[in-house]
Protein backbone atom coordinates (compact mmCIF):
# COMPACT_ATOMS: atom_id res chain seq x y z
CA UNK A 1 0.00 0.00 0.00
CA UNK A 2 1.12 3.52 -0.61
CA UNK A 3 1.18 5.96 2.24
CA UNK A 4 -2.40 5.99 3.50
CA UNK A 5 -3.68 9.52 3.55
CA UNK A 6 -5.94 10.47 6.42
CA UNK A 7 -7.94 12.87 4.30
CA UNK A 8 -10.85 11.32 2.39
CA UNK A 9 -10.92 11.98 -1.33
CA UNK A 10 -14.22 13.35 -2.61
CA UNK A 11 -16.26 10.50 -4.03
CA UNK A 12 -17.28 10.51 -7.65
CA UNK A 13 -20.96 11.14 -6.92
CA UNK A 14 -20.00 14.47 -5.33
CA UNK A 15 -18.33 15.66 -8.53
CA UNK A 16 -20.99 16.22 -11.24
CA UNK A 17 -18.50 17.91 -13.56
CA UNK A 18 -16.29 14.83 -13.54
CA UNK A 19 -19.32 12.62 -14.23
CA UNK A 20 -20.27 14.84 -17.15
CA UNK A 21 -16.75 14.62 -18.52
CA UNK A 22 -16.75 10.82 -18.25
CA UNK A 23 -20.10 10.72 -20.04
CA UNK A 24 -18.97 13.07 -22.81
CA UNK A 25 -15.68 11.26 -23.38
CA UNK A 26 -17.35 7.86 -23.46
CA UNK A 27 -19.93 9.19 -25.98
CA UNK A 28 -17.17 10.29 -28.32
CA UNK A 29 -15.10 7.12 -27.88
CA UNK A 30 -18.06 4.77 -28.28
CA UNK A 31 -19.24 6.63 -31.38
CA UNK A 32 -15.75 6.40 -32.87
CA UNK A 33 -15.32 2.67 -32.24
CA UNK A 34 -18.94 2.01 -33.25
CA UNK A 35 -19.99 0.41 -30.01
CA UNK A 36 -23.60 1.54 -30.54
CA UNK A 37 -23.93 -1.07 -33.31
CA UNK A 38 -23.63 -3.76 -30.67
CA UNK A 39 -26.64 -2.31 -28.88
CA UNK A 40 -28.64 -1.84 -32.08
CA UNK A 41 -27.96 -5.45 -33.08
CA UNK A 42 -29.70 -6.80 -29.98
CA UNK A 43 -32.27 -9.38 -31.21
CA UNK A 44 -35.38 -7.89 -29.55
CA UNK A 45 -34.99 -4.55 -31.34
CA UNK A 46 -36.55 -4.05 -34.79
CA UNK A 47 -33.91 -4.48 -37.49
CA UNK A 48 -34.49 -2.16 -40.48
CA UNK A 49 -32.13 -2.18 -43.47
CA UNK A 50 -30.19 0.73 -42.06
CA UNK A 51 -30.42 2.71 -38.81
CA UNK A 52 -30.95 6.44 -39.13
CA UNK A 53 -28.51 8.92 -37.65
CA UNK A 54 -30.98 9.74 -34.87
CA UNK A 55 -31.28 6.11 -33.82
CA UNK A 56 -27.51 5.75 -33.88
CA UNK A 57 -27.13 8.87 -31.80
CA UNK A 58 -29.63 7.68 -29.22
CA UNK A 59 -27.92 4.29 -29.08
CA UNK A 60 -24.56 5.96 -28.44
CA UNK A 61 -26.05 8.05 -25.65
CA UNK A 62 -27.64 4.99 -24.08
CA UNK A 63 -24.41 2.97 -24.17
CA UNK A 64 -22.37 5.86 -22.77
CA UNK A 65 -25.04 6.48 -20.14
CA UNK A 66 -24.99 2.84 -19.03
CA UNK A 67 -21.20 2.95 -18.87
CA UNK A 68 -21.18 6.11 -16.76
CA UNK A 69 -23.89 4.75 -14.47
CA UNK A 70 -21.84 1.59 -14.04
CA UNK A 71 -18.79 3.59 -12.98
CA UNK A 72 -20.90 5.69 -10.65
CA UNK A 73 -22.38 2.62 -8.99
CA UNK A 74 -19.04 0.90 -8.62
CA UNK A 75 -17.52 4.00 -7.07
CA UNK A 76 -20.01 3.72 -4.21
CA UNK A 77 -19.03 0.15 -3.28
CA UNK A 78 -16.69 -0.85 -0.46
CA UNK A 79 -13.06 -1.26 -1.52
CA UNK A 80 -12.97 -5.08 -1.64
CA UNK A 81 -16.27 -5.34 -3.49
CA UNK A 82 -15.15 -2.56 -5.83
CA UNK A 83 -11.99 -4.47 -6.75
CA UNK A 84 -13.99 -7.65 -7.26
CA UNK A 85 -16.63 -6.04 -9.48
CA UNK A 86 -14.07 -4.25 -11.66
CA UNK A 87 -12.15 -7.51 -12.07
CA UNK A 88 -15.33 -9.35 -12.95
CA UNK A 89 -16.41 -6.78 -15.54
CA UNK A 90 -12.99 -6.63 -17.17
CA UNK A 91 -12.94 -10.42 -17.25
CA UNK A 92 -16.35 -10.43 -18.89
CA UNK A 93 -15.02 -8.12 -21.61
CA UNK A 94 -12.23 -10.61 -22.17
CA UNK A 95 -14.72 -13.48 -22.39
CA UNK A 96 -16.81 -11.55 -24.93
CA UNK A 97 -13.63 -11.06 -26.95
CA UNK A 98 -12.92 -14.78 -26.58
CA UNK A 99 -16.37 -15.90 -27.69
CA UNK A 100 -16.40 -13.42 -30.59
CA UNK A 101 -14.08 -15.79 -32.49
CA UNK A 102 -16.73 -18.40 -33.18
CA UNK A 103 -14.61 -21.14 -31.66
CA UNK A 104 -15.17 -24.86 -31.85
CA UNK A 105 -15.58 -25.74 -28.17
CA UNK A 106 -15.94 -29.52 -28.50
CA UNK A 107 -12.52 -29.48 -30.17
CA UNK A 108 -11.03 -27.52 -27.27
CA UNK A 109 -12.60 -29.90 -24.77
CA UNK A 110 -11.12 -32.96 -26.45
CA UNK A 111 -7.62 -31.47 -26.38
CA UNK A 112 -7.81 -29.83 -22.97
CA UNK A 113 -6.91 -32.87 -20.82
CA UNK A 114 -3.74 -33.48 -22.81
CA UNK A 115 -2.77 -29.79 -22.67
CA UNK A 116 -3.36 -29.72 -18.93
CA UNK A 117 -1.39 -32.86 -18.16
CA UNK A 118 1.50 -33.07 -20.61
CA UNK A 119 1.72 -29.36 -21.47
CA UNK A 120 1.28 -27.72 -18.10
CA UNK A 121 3.48 -30.33 -16.45
CA UNK A 122 6.36 -29.81 -18.87
CA UNK A 123 6.06 -26.04 -18.76
CA UNK A 124 6.04 -26.00 -14.99
CA UNK A 125 8.97 -28.33 -14.51
CA UNK A 126 11.12 -26.67 -17.16
CA UNK A 127 10.38 -23.29 -15.52
CA UNK A 128 10.91 -24.57 -11.99
CA UNK A 129 14.31 -26.10 -12.73
CA UNK A 130 15.37 -23.03 -14.72
CA UNK A 131 14.32 -20.53 -12.10
CA UNK A 132 16.15 -22.49 -9.39
CA UNK A 133 19.39 -22.56 -11.36
CA UNK A 134 18.90 -18.92 -12.35
CA UNK A 135 18.51 -17.88 -8.70
CA UNK A 136 21.76 -19.58 -7.73
CA UNK A 137 23.54 -18.02 -10.74
CA UNK A 138 22.10 -14.64 -9.83
CA UNK A 139 23.31 -14.71 -6.21
CA UNK A 140 26.84 -15.56 -7.31
CA UNK A 141 26.63 -13.11 -10.21
CA UNK A 142 25.55 -10.31 -7.88
CA UNK A 143 28.33 -11.02 -5.39
CA UNK A 144 30.86 -11.18 -8.21
CA UNK A 145 29.66 -7.90 -9.68
CA UNK A 146 30.02 -6.24 -6.29
CA UNK A 147 33.41 -7.74 -5.55
CA UNK A 148 36.73 -6.03 -5.96
CA UNK A 149 38.18 -9.13 -7.62
CA UNK A 150 38.91 -8.28 -11.25
CA UNK A 151 38.29 -11.79 -12.57
CA UNK A 152 35.00 -12.17 -10.75
CA UNK A 153 33.76 -8.76 -11.85
CA UNK A 154 34.88 -9.23 -15.45
CA UNK A 155 33.33 -12.67 -15.80
CA UNK A 156 30.08 -11.61 -14.14
CA UNK A 157 29.69 -8.41 -16.12
CA UNK A 158 30.53 -10.20 -19.39
CA UNK A 159 27.95 -12.82 -18.49
CA UNK A 160 25.17 -10.35 -17.72
CA UNK A 161 25.99 -8.22 -20.73
CA UNK A 162 25.97 -11.16 -23.13
CA UNK A 163 22.90 -12.96 -21.85
CA UNK A 164 20.88 -9.82 -21.49
CA UNK A 165 22.10 -8.67 -24.88
CA UNK A 166 21.21 -11.71 -27.02
CA UNK A 167 17.58 -12.49 -27.76
CA UNK A 168 16.47 -15.52 -25.75
CA UNK A 169 15.39 -17.31 -28.92
CA UNK A 170 18.89 -16.91 -30.34
CA UNK A 171 20.40 -18.23 -27.10
CA UNK A 172 18.17 -21.29 -27.28
CA UNK A 173 19.24 -22.03 -30.84
CA UNK A 174 22.88 -21.34 -30.06
CA UNK A 175 22.89 -23.81 -27.20
CA UNK A 176 20.88 -26.49 -28.97
CA UNK A 177 22.60 -26.20 -32.35
CA UNK A 178 25.92 -24.66 -31.34
CA UNK A 179 27.05 -26.95 -28.55
CA UNK A 180 26.94 -30.11 -30.71
CA UNK A 181 29.42 -28.39 -33.03
CA UNK A 182 31.82 -28.39 -30.08
CA UNK A 183 31.15 -32.07 -29.52
CA UNK A 184 28.76 -31.51 -26.63
CA UNK A 185 25.38 -33.06 -27.30
CA UNK A 186 22.44 -31.85 -25.28
CA UNK A 187 18.82 -32.97 -25.50
CA UNK A 188 16.10 -30.47 -26.18
CA UNK A 189 14.89 -30.18 -22.58
CA UNK A 190 18.34 -29.63 -21.01
CA UNK A 191 19.21 -27.20 -23.79
CA UNK A 192 16.08 -25.20 -23.08
CA UNK A 193 16.70 -25.29 -19.36
CA UNK A 194 20.30 -24.11 -19.82
CA UNK A 195 19.24 -21.23 -22.06
CA UNK A 196 16.45 -20.10 -19.74
CA UNK A 197 18.65 -20.38 -16.64
CA UNK A 198 21.51 -18.42 -18.16
CA UNK A 199 19.27 -15.70 -19.52
CA UNK A 200 17.18 -15.22 -16.38
CA UNK A 201 20.24 -15.63 -14.17
CA UNK A 202 21.64 -12.58 -15.94
CA UNK A 203 18.52 -10.47 -15.35
CA UNK A 204 18.19 -11.63 -11.76
CA UNK A 205 21.87 -10.86 -11.10
CA UNK A 206 20.96 -7.20 -11.38
CA UNK A 207 17.98 -7.62 -9.06
CA UNK A 208 20.05 -9.34 -6.39
CA UNK A 209 22.80 -6.76 -6.79
CA UNK A 210 20.34 -3.95 -6.18
CA UNK A 211 18.92 -5.80 -3.18
CA UNK A 212 22.33 -6.39 -1.61
CA UNK A 213 23.34 -2.77 -2.20
CA UNK A 214 20.17 -1.51 -0.53
CA UNK A 215 21.29 -2.92 2.84
CA UNK A 216 22.92 -0.39 5.13
CA UNK A 217 26.71 -0.57 5.45
CA UNK A 218 26.27 -0.66 9.23
CA UNK A 219 24.87 -4.19 8.94
CA UNK A 220 28.11 -5.35 7.36
CA UNK A 221 30.15 -3.59 9.99
CA UNK A 222 28.12 -5.02 12.85
CA UNK A 223 28.38 -8.55 11.47
CA UNK A 224 32.08 -8.29 10.67
CA UNK A 225 32.89 -6.82 14.05
CA UNK A 226 31.36 -9.86 15.78
CA UNK A 227 33.69 -12.01 13.72
CA UNK A 228 31.34 -13.09 10.91
CA UNK A 229 33.25 -13.96 7.76
CA UNK A 230 32.04 -12.77 4.36
CA UNK A 231 29.93 -15.81 3.52
CA UNK A 232 28.27 -15.96 6.90
CA UNK A 233 27.45 -12.25 6.77
CA UNK A 234 25.91 -12.69 3.35
CA UNK A 235 23.88 -15.74 4.32
CA UNK A 236 22.70 -14.72 7.75
CA UNK A 237 22.53 -10.93 7.66
CA UNK A 238 22.49 -9.43 4.18
CA UNK A 239 20.43 -11.83 2.05
CA UNK A 240 17.69 -12.33 4.64
CA UNK A 241 17.17 -8.57 4.58
CA UNK A 242 17.60 -8.20 0.82
CA UNK A 243 15.18 -10.97 -0.15
CA UNK A 244 11.98 -9.33 1.16
CA UNK A 245 12.89 -6.20 -0.79
CA UNK A 246 13.42 -8.05 -4.05
CA UNK A 247 10.37 -10.33 -3.88
CA UNK A 248 8.28 -8.13 -6.24
CA UNK A 249 10.89 -7.91 -9.02
CA UNK A 250 11.72 -11.60 -8.55
CA UNK A 251 8.02 -12.40 -8.91
CA UNK A 252 8.10 -10.51 -12.19
CA UNK A 253 10.98 -12.65 -13.37
CA UNK A 254 9.27 -15.89 -12.34
CA UNK A 255 6.17 -14.94 -14.31
CA UNK A 256 8.14 -13.77 -17.32
CA UNK A 257 10.13 -17.02 -17.24
CA UNK A 258 6.93 -19.07 -17.13
CA UNK A 259 5.84 -17.55 -20.41
CA UNK A 260 9.27 -17.36 -22.00
CA UNK A 261 9.56 -21.08 -21.47
CA UNK A 262 7.21 -21.21 -24.48
CA UNK A 263 10.23 -20.33 -26.60
CA UNK A 264 11.74 -23.77 -26.05
CA UNK A 265 8.85 -25.10 -28.14
CA UNK A 266 11.12 -24.40 -31.11
CA UNK A 267 13.23 -27.33 -29.95
CA UNK A 268 10.24 -29.66 -30.02
CA UNK A 269 9.84 -29.88 -26.26
CA UNK A 270 6.31 -30.98 -25.50
CA UNK A 271 5.36 -27.99 -23.40
CA UNK A 272 2.15 -25.98 -23.67
CA UNK A 273 3.05 -23.81 -26.62
CA UNK A 274 4.41 -26.67 -28.70
CA UNK A 275 1.33 -28.79 -28.08
CA UNK A 276 -0.95 -25.87 -28.87
CA UNK A 277 0.74 -25.30 -32.20
CA UNK A 278 0.96 -28.92 -33.29
CA UNK A 279 -2.54 -29.86 -32.14
CA UNK A 280 -3.98 -26.75 -33.75
CA UNK A 281 -2.09 -27.26 -37.00
CA UNK A 282 -3.23 -30.83 -37.45
CA UNK A 283 -6.89 -29.83 -37.63
CA UNK A 284 -6.57 -26.21 -38.74
CA UNK A 285 -7.87 -24.92 -35.44
CA UNK A 286 -5.04 -22.51 -34.55
CA UNK A 287 -7.10 -19.91 -32.75
CA UNK A 288 -8.82 -22.44 -30.51
CA UNK A 289 -5.52 -23.78 -29.26
CA UNK A 290 -3.81 -20.40 -28.99
CA UNK A 291 -6.62 -18.89 -26.95
CA UNK A 292 -6.80 -21.98 -24.75
CA UNK A 293 -3.11 -21.91 -23.86
CA UNK A 294 -3.35 -18.14 -23.43
CA UNK A 295 -5.88 -18.71 -20.68
CA UNK A 296 -3.89 -21.57 -19.17
CA UNK A 297 -0.78 -19.35 -18.99
CA UNK A 298 -2.86 -16.60 -17.46
CA UNK A 299 -4.30 -18.91 -14.80
CA UNK A 300 -0.81 -20.14 -13.90
CA UNK A 301 0.31 -16.52 -13.66
CA UNK A 302 -2.56 -15.70 -11.32
CA UNK A 303 -1.48 -18.58 -9.07
CA UNK A 304 2.06 -17.16 -9.05
CA UNK A 305 0.70 -13.72 -8.21
CA UNK A 306 -1.25 -15.10 -5.28
CA UNK A 307 1.82 -16.95 -4.01
CA UNK A 308 3.89 -13.77 -4.36
CA UNK A 309 1.29 -11.83 -2.37
CA UNK A 310 1.41 -14.46 0.36
CA UNK A 311 5.21 -14.29 0.52
CA UNK A 312 5.13 -10.51 0.70
CA UNK A 313 2.67 -10.46 3.58
CA UNK A 314 4.69 -13.17 5.33
CA UNK A 315 7.78 -10.97 5.22
CA UNK A 316 5.77 -7.96 6.30
CA UNK A 317 4.65 -9.82 9.40
CA UNK A 318 7.83 -11.61 10.33
CA UNK A 319 10.65 -9.38 9.21
CA UNK A 320 10.12 -6.00 10.68
CA UNK A 321 12.56 -3.20 10.09
Amino acid at each position, binding site marked *: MLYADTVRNRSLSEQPVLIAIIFAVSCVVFALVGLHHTLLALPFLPQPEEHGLVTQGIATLVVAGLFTLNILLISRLRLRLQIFVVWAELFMCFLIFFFAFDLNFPFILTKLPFLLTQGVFTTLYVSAISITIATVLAIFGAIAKLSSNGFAFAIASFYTSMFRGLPLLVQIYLIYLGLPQLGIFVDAVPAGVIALSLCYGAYMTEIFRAGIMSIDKGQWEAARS*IGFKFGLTMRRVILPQAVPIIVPPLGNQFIAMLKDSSLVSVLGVWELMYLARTLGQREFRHLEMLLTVAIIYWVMTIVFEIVQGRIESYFQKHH*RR
Partner: protein
Amino acid sequence: MTHEDTNAVGSEIIAIRDMHKWYGNFHALKDINLTVHLGEKIVVCGPSGSGKSTMIRCINRLEGHQKGTIHVDGIELHEDMRNIDIVRQEVGMVFQHFNLFPHMTVLENLTAGPMWVKKLPRAEAEDTARRYLERVKISEQAEKYPSQLSGGQQQRVAIARSLCMEPKVLLFDEPTSALDPEMVSEVLETMEDLAGTGVTMVCVTHEMGFAKAVADRVVFMDEGRIIESGEPVEFFKNPESERTKKFLDQILS
Protein backbone atom coordinates in the same frame (compact mmCIF):
# COMPACT_ATOMS: atom_id res chain seq x y z
CA MET B 1 35.97 -10.51 32.01
CA THR B 2 36.62 -14.24 31.80
CA HIS B 3 39.98 -13.73 30.16
CA GLU B 4 41.39 -11.30 32.61
CA ASP B 5 43.10 -13.86 34.82
CA THR B 6 45.00 -15.32 31.86
CA ASN B 7 46.75 -11.99 31.19
CA ALA B 8 48.76 -10.26 33.81
CA VAL B 9 46.75 -7.20 34.82
CA GLY B 10 48.13 -4.13 33.14
CA SER B 11 49.69 -5.84 30.12
CA GLU B 12 49.34 -4.05 26.79
CA ILE B 13 46.20 -4.99 24.90
CA ILE B 14 46.19 -2.28 22.22
CA ALA B 15 49.38 -0.72 20.92
CA ILE B 16 49.21 1.87 18.14
CA ARG B 17 52.58 3.14 16.92
CA ASP B 18 53.23 6.03 14.50
CA MET B 19 50.02 5.22 12.68
CA HIS B 20 48.81 7.22 9.68
CA LYS B 21 45.70 6.88 7.61
CA TRP B 22 44.68 8.51 4.38
CA TYR B 23 41.31 8.56 2.63
CA GLY B 24 42.57 9.05 -0.91
CA ASN B 25 44.57 12.27 -0.61
CA PHE B 26 42.99 13.29 2.67
CA HIS B 27 45.30 12.70 5.62
CA ALA B 28 42.72 11.59 8.20
CA LEU B 29 45.00 10.30 10.98
CA LYS B 30 48.47 11.67 11.61
CA ASP B 31 51.13 10.01 13.69
CA ILE B 32 48.81 8.31 16.18
CA ASN B 33 50.44 6.73 19.24
CA LEU B 34 48.21 5.11 21.80
CA THR B 35 48.73 2.31 24.27
CA VAL B 36 45.86 0.75 26.15
CA HIS B 37 46.45 -1.64 29.00
CA LEU B 38 44.19 -4.47 29.98
CA GLY B 39 41.32 -3.21 32.11
CA GLU B 40 41.86 0.44 31.24
CA LYS B 41 38.96 2.75 30.35
CA ILE B 42 39.86 5.33 27.72
CA VAL B 43 37.58 8.15 26.64
CA VAL B 44 38.32 9.79 23.28
CA CYS B 45 36.90 13.22 22.58
CA GLY B 46 37.43 16.03 20.12
CA PRO B 47 35.57 18.17 17.62
CA SER B 48 33.58 16.72 14.73
CA GLY B 49 35.75 15.44 11.91
CA SER B 50 38.83 15.13 14.10
CA GLY B 51 39.22 11.43 13.31
CA LYS B 52 37.87 9.80 16.49
CA SER B 53 35.66 7.30 14.69
CA THR B 54 38.34 6.58 12.16
CA MET B 55 40.86 5.80 14.88
CA ILE B 56 38.73 3.40 16.86
CA ARG B 57 37.51 1.71 13.68
CA CYS B 58 41.15 1.02 12.88
CA ILE B 59 41.43 -0.97 16.10
CA ASN B 60 39.22 -3.78 14.76
CA ARG B 61 40.24 -3.01 11.21
CA LEU B 62 36.89 -1.82 9.95
CA GLU B 63 39.25 0.75 8.44
CA GLY B 64 42.76 -0.03 7.27
CA HIS B 65 45.77 2.14 8.05
CA GLN B 66 48.62 2.85 5.65
CA LYS B 67 51.61 3.57 7.88
CA GLY B 68 52.75 2.50 11.33
CA THR B 69 51.55 -0.50 13.30
CA ILE B 70 48.57 -1.55 15.36
CA HIS B 71 48.81 -4.54 17.68
CA VAL B 72 45.76 -5.97 19.41
CA ASP B 73 46.47 -8.59 22.05
CA GLY B 74 49.87 -9.15 20.46
CA ILE B 75 48.52 -9.69 16.94
CA GLU B 76 49.53 -7.12 14.36
CA LEU B 77 46.70 -5.84 12.14
CA HIS B 78 47.61 -5.58 8.50
CA GLU B 79 46.19 -5.96 5.05
CA ASP B 80 46.80 -9.58 4.21
CA MET B 81 45.99 -11.21 7.47
CA ARG B 82 43.98 -14.38 7.73
CA ASN B 83 43.15 -14.10 11.40
CA ILE B 84 41.31 -10.79 11.44
CA ASP B 85 38.18 -12.66 12.52
CA ILE B 86 40.02 -13.93 15.59
CA VAL B 87 40.98 -10.38 16.53
CA ARG B 88 37.43 -9.23 15.94
CA GLN B 89 36.11 -11.84 18.35
CA GLU B 90 38.33 -10.26 20.99
CA VAL B 91 37.22 -6.72 20.18
CA GLY B 92 33.56 -5.84 20.52
CA MET B 93 32.16 -2.73 18.89
CA VAL B 94 29.11 -0.64 19.75
CA PHE B 95 27.95 1.75 17.05
CA GLN B 96 26.30 5.14 17.13
CA HIS B 97 23.30 3.77 15.19
CA PHE B 98 23.17 0.41 17.03
CA ASN B 99 23.28 -1.64 13.81
CA LEU B 100 21.18 -4.42 15.28
CA PHE B 101 20.02 -7.07 12.82
CA PRO B 102 16.41 -6.03 12.17
CA HIS B 103 15.28 -9.44 10.91
CA MET B 104 16.30 -11.22 14.11
CA THR B 105 14.74 -11.05 17.55
CA VAL B 106 16.76 -9.59 20.39
CA LEU B 107 17.73 -13.07 21.52
CA GLU B 108 18.75 -14.11 18.01
CA ASN B 109 20.85 -10.95 17.71
CA LEU B 110 22.68 -11.98 20.84
CA THR B 111 23.15 -15.66 20.01
CA ALA B 112 24.23 -15.07 16.40
CA GLY B 113 27.91 -14.54 17.22
CA PRO B 114 28.32 -17.29 19.81
CA MET B 115 26.42 -19.86 17.72
CA TRP B 116 27.77 -19.19 14.26
CA VAL B 117 31.24 -17.86 14.98
CA LYS B 118 32.17 -19.65 18.17
CA LYS B 119 30.00 -22.66 17.28
CA LEU B 120 28.52 -22.92 20.76
CA PRO B 121 25.41 -25.09 21.13
CA ARG B 122 22.15 -23.13 21.10
CA ALA B 123 21.26 -23.79 24.73
CA GLU B 124 24.61 -22.50 25.96
CA ALA B 125 24.47 -19.45 23.69
CA GLU B 126 20.97 -18.61 24.91
CA ASP B 127 22.06 -18.94 28.53
CA THR B 128 24.89 -16.49 27.93
CA ALA B 129 22.55 -14.19 26.02
CA ARG B 130 19.96 -14.12 28.79
CA ARG B 131 22.65 -13.48 31.37
CA TYR B 132 23.86 -10.40 29.47
CA LEU B 133 20.33 -9.23 28.77
CA GLU B 134 19.83 -9.24 32.50
CA ARG B 135 23.05 -7.29 32.95
CA VAL B 136 21.76 -4.56 30.63
CA LYS B 137 18.32 -4.84 32.30
CA ILE B 138 16.11 -5.81 29.38
CA SER B 139 15.61 -9.54 29.88
CA GLU B 140 11.86 -9.15 29.32
CA GLN B 141 12.40 -7.96 25.70
CA ALA B 142 14.20 -11.09 24.48
CA GLU B 143 11.54 -12.19 22.00
CA LYS B 144 10.91 -8.75 20.48
CA TYR B 145 12.34 -7.37 17.26
CA PRO B 146 14.72 -4.39 17.43
CA SER B 147 12.18 -2.09 15.76
CA GLN B 148 9.83 -2.67 18.69
CA LEU B 149 12.31 -1.23 21.18
CA SER B 150 13.18 2.32 22.12
CA GLY B 151 16.53 3.76 21.09
CA GLY B 152 18.01 3.35 24.53
CA GLN B 153 16.84 -0.26 24.72
CA GLN B 154 18.26 -0.96 21.27
CA GLN B 155 21.63 0.42 22.26
CA ARG B 156 21.64 -1.72 25.40
CA VAL B 157 20.85 -4.77 23.25
CA ALA B 158 23.76 -3.80 21.03
CA ILE B 159 26.03 -3.62 24.06
CA ALA B 160 24.79 -7.03 25.20
CA ARG B 161 25.41 -8.40 21.72
CA SER B 162 29.06 -7.37 21.93
CA LEU B 163 29.36 -8.77 25.43
CA CYS B 164 28.07 -12.18 24.32
CA MET B 165 31.31 -12.72 22.43
CA GLU B 166 33.12 -12.15 25.75
CA PRO B 167 35.61 -9.74 24.20
CA LYS B 168 38.70 -8.41 25.93
CA VAL B 169 38.15 -4.93 24.54
CA LEU B 170 34.95 -3.00 23.91
CA LEU B 171 34.98 -0.10 21.47
CA PHE B 172 32.18 2.47 21.64
CA ASP B 173 31.67 5.02 18.86
CA GLU B 174 29.43 7.76 20.26
CA PRO B 175 26.97 5.25 21.72
CA THR B 176 24.62 7.90 23.08
CA SER B 177 24.66 10.62 20.44
CA ALA B 178 21.79 9.18 18.39
CA LEU B 179 19.57 8.93 21.47
CA ASP B 180 16.91 11.21 22.88
CA PRO B 181 18.13 12.99 26.02
CA GLU B 182 16.02 10.92 28.41
CA MET B 183 17.50 7.69 27.08
CA VAL B 184 21.12 8.76 27.33
CA SER B 185 21.35 8.12 31.04
CA GLU B 186 20.10 4.52 30.87
CA VAL B 187 22.83 3.67 28.36
CA LEU B 188 25.50 5.54 30.31
CA GLU B 189 24.46 3.68 33.47
CA THR B 190 24.87 0.39 31.63
CA MET B 191 28.31 1.44 30.46
CA GLU B 192 29.36 2.57 33.93
CA ASP B 193 28.15 -0.74 35.29
CA LEU B 194 30.25 -2.49 32.66
CA ALA B 195 33.30 -0.42 33.52
CA GLY B 196 33.07 -1.89 37.01
CA THR B 197 33.56 -5.42 35.65
CA GLY B 198 37.12 -4.82 34.52
CA VAL B 199 36.64 -5.01 30.75
CA THR B 200 38.90 -2.79 28.67
CA MET B 201 36.95 0.07 27.10
CA VAL B 202 37.79 2.62 24.44
CA CYS B 203 34.92 5.03 24.17
CA VAL B 204 34.38 7.95 21.83
CA THR B 205 31.92 10.20 23.61
CA HIS B 206 31.16 13.78 24.50
CA GLU B 207 29.58 12.76 27.80
CA MET B 208 32.07 14.39 30.10
CA GLY B 209 30.22 13.21 33.20
CA PHE B 210 30.85 9.64 32.08
CA ALA B 211 34.51 10.46 31.40
CA LYS B 212 34.95 11.91 34.89
CA ALA B 213 33.24 8.95 36.50
CA VAL B 214 34.93 6.01 34.80
CA ALA B 215 37.84 7.05 32.56
CA ASP B 216 41.40 6.21 33.50
CA ARG B 217 42.54 8.46 30.71
CA VAL B 218 40.96 11.03 28.40
CA VAL B 219 42.39 11.42 24.90
CA PHE B 220 41.76 14.63 22.98
CA MET B 221 41.97 14.61 19.19
CA ASP B 222 41.90 17.41 16.66
CA GLU B 223 42.52 17.43 12.92
CA GLY B 224 43.64 13.82 12.85
CA ARG B 225 46.14 14.11 15.71
CA ILE B 226 46.12 13.16 19.35
CA ILE B 227 46.67 16.56 20.92
CA GLU B 228 46.90 15.45 24.51
CA SER B 229 45.86 12.75 26.91
CA GLY B 230 45.76 12.56 30.66
CA GLU B 231 43.91 11.58 33.79
CA PRO B 232 40.40 13.02 33.78
CA VAL B 233 40.85 15.22 36.83
CA GLU B 234 43.98 16.85 35.41
CA PHE B 235 42.56 16.91 31.90
CA PHE B 236 39.47 18.84 32.87
CA LYS B 237 41.14 21.12 35.37
CA ASN B 238 44.36 22.04 33.60
CA PRO B 239 44.24 21.16 29.90
CA GLU B 240 47.65 21.66 28.34
CA SER B 241 46.76 23.02 24.93
CA GLU B 242 44.67 26.00 23.91
CA ARG B 243 42.59 23.87 21.55
CA THR B 244 41.60 21.49 24.32
CA LYS B 245 40.64 24.43 26.50
CA LYS B 246 38.47 25.89 23.77
CA PHE B 247 36.82 22.54 23.08
CA LEU B 248 36.10 21.94 26.76
CA ASP B 249 34.65 25.43 27.14
CA GLN B 250 32.29 24.77 24.26
CA ILE B 251 31.21 21.36 25.43
CA LEU B 252 30.84 22.08 29.13
CA SER B 253 29.05 25.41 28.74
